[in-house]
Structure formats: structure tokens, C-alpha cells
């Protein structure tokens, strides 16, 4: 019911969503919320490389999913995160949550993506024409995660 993936391969949305749908059909859950993050071409970014902490990353994502399951009545949680080098327009992260009703599914999806931003050990490096740079953490992300208590 919880599916975690940290992968260098592109994220296959159709496969990921179909997996969520299949896992909840038996449970009679009717609503699936999802969030997909794409690499943006801000300020001339040509490529984005995601570094991570193998082992801890998977455990951190699992903990986020388990916290969501403890907080809402969910039929499924899928969190997929890409690592390695990707280009603008490619998917970095995919979160899907399924629940009986839309409000729970959407809240749980927001929660997972907010927590993932602060709780999972990933680091982004942007390649631009002016050279490479490590992306700085955004205070807004820490605030969003804290707002969940």
C-alpha cells in the first residue's frame, strides 16, 4: 500500500498512477490526488543533477508515507523521486495518495510533498551557462513542513 522509489530512470506517470488505482480498487477508495514536480528552466538551467544519501533517502521517504498513513485514512501512498541528471521538463518527483474522499487525498498529498522537501536527503545541482551551482534550501519549504506540526 506504500510504494517508495528512488530511481535514475524517468518516472512513468501512467504506470505509477495505474499502480495506485489497482491497489485501492479493492479497498473502495474513490479519490486519488497526485503531485508531479518538473525540472524548470529557470534562469537558463540546462540540466539538474540530484544527489542523495542512499539508504537514508528510502527510509526517509518511507517515514513520510507512514506518517501520512497514520494521519489520514489512506488506501495508498506512492512516492517516487528521481536522482541523477535530468533536463528541464523532466519529472523529478511524483507523489500520489488515495483516500475515500478528495479532501483527505489532497491534504495527504500536500503533506507528503511538504515533508519530503525537508525530511529526505536530496541535493540539487544546477548546470547553467555561467557554470554549476548547488541549489540553496528555501526557508518557505521549512515553514511549509513545520505548518503540519
Amino acid at each position, binding site marked *: 500500500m506504500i510504494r517508495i522509489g528512488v530511481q535514475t530512470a524517468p518516472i512513468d506517470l501512467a504506470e505509477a498512477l495505474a499502480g495506485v488505482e489497482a491497489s485501492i480498487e479493492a479497498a473502495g477508495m474513490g479519490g486519488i490526488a497526485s503531485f508531479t*514536480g518538473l525540472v524548470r528552466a529557470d534562469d537558463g538551467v540546462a540540466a539538474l543533477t*540530484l*544527489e*542523495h*544519501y542512499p*539508504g*537514508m533517502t528510502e*527510509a526517509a521517504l518511507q517515514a513520510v508515507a507512514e506518517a501520512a498513513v497514520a494521519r489520514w485514512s489512506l488506501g495508498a501512498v506512492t512516492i517516487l*523521486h528521481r536522482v541523477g541528471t535530468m533536463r528541464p521538463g523532466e519529472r*523529478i*518527483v511524483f507523489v500520489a495518495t488515495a483516500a475515500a474522499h478528495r479532501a483527505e487525498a489532497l491534504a495527504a498529498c500536500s503533506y507528503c*510533498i511538504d515533508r*519530503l*522537501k*525537508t*525530511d*529526505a*536527503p*536530496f*541535493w*540539487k*545541482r544546477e548546470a547553467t551557462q555561467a557554470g554549476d551551482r*548547488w*541549489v*540553496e*534550501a*528555501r526557508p518557505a*519549504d521549512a515553514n511549509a513542513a513545520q505548518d503540519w506540526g
Partner: protein
Amino acid sequence: MAVRLLYFAWVREAVGTGEETLDPPAEAVTLGQLIDWLSTLSLGHAAAFADRGRLRAAIDQQFVAMDAPVAGAQEIAIFPPVTGG
């Protein structure tokens, strides 16, 4: 006691390696004190750990604060604030 040190992102780049196994002195009781000692090892280490406000850490794959005790740790990771998602 030997401990495995892991570095990520620009901390890794500054230190010059992503992983090393070291035997810190007994005075390194907290993570902050361990970092004080690590900073003396090379210019790269000194540069990596110069700005403590920009460092985060995990002991045995759990995020910890800089005053966390390091006794018994098998794996200590030091890195910038995370930027996933």
C-alpha cells in the same frame, strides 16, 4: 572508535571525498566538537565546515542537531540543507 564519515553536495566537494573512516579523539563528544576536530584535518575540511549555519547532519541515518552526542555512532553524514522534491 572508528566511525564512517559521509559527505554530500558541496561539503563532499570541499572535503574532496564522499566518504572516509576516521578515529576521532575522545574530546569529540558532540557532533559540533567532532566537526571542530574534522576542520583541523585539511584545508578542504576547514573550508567545508567553516560556516556551521549551513551544515546539517545525520547520525546512523537520522537527522540530528549539532549538540547531539556521537558516542556509539557507526555512520555520521554531514551535508548542506536538503533541497529535494
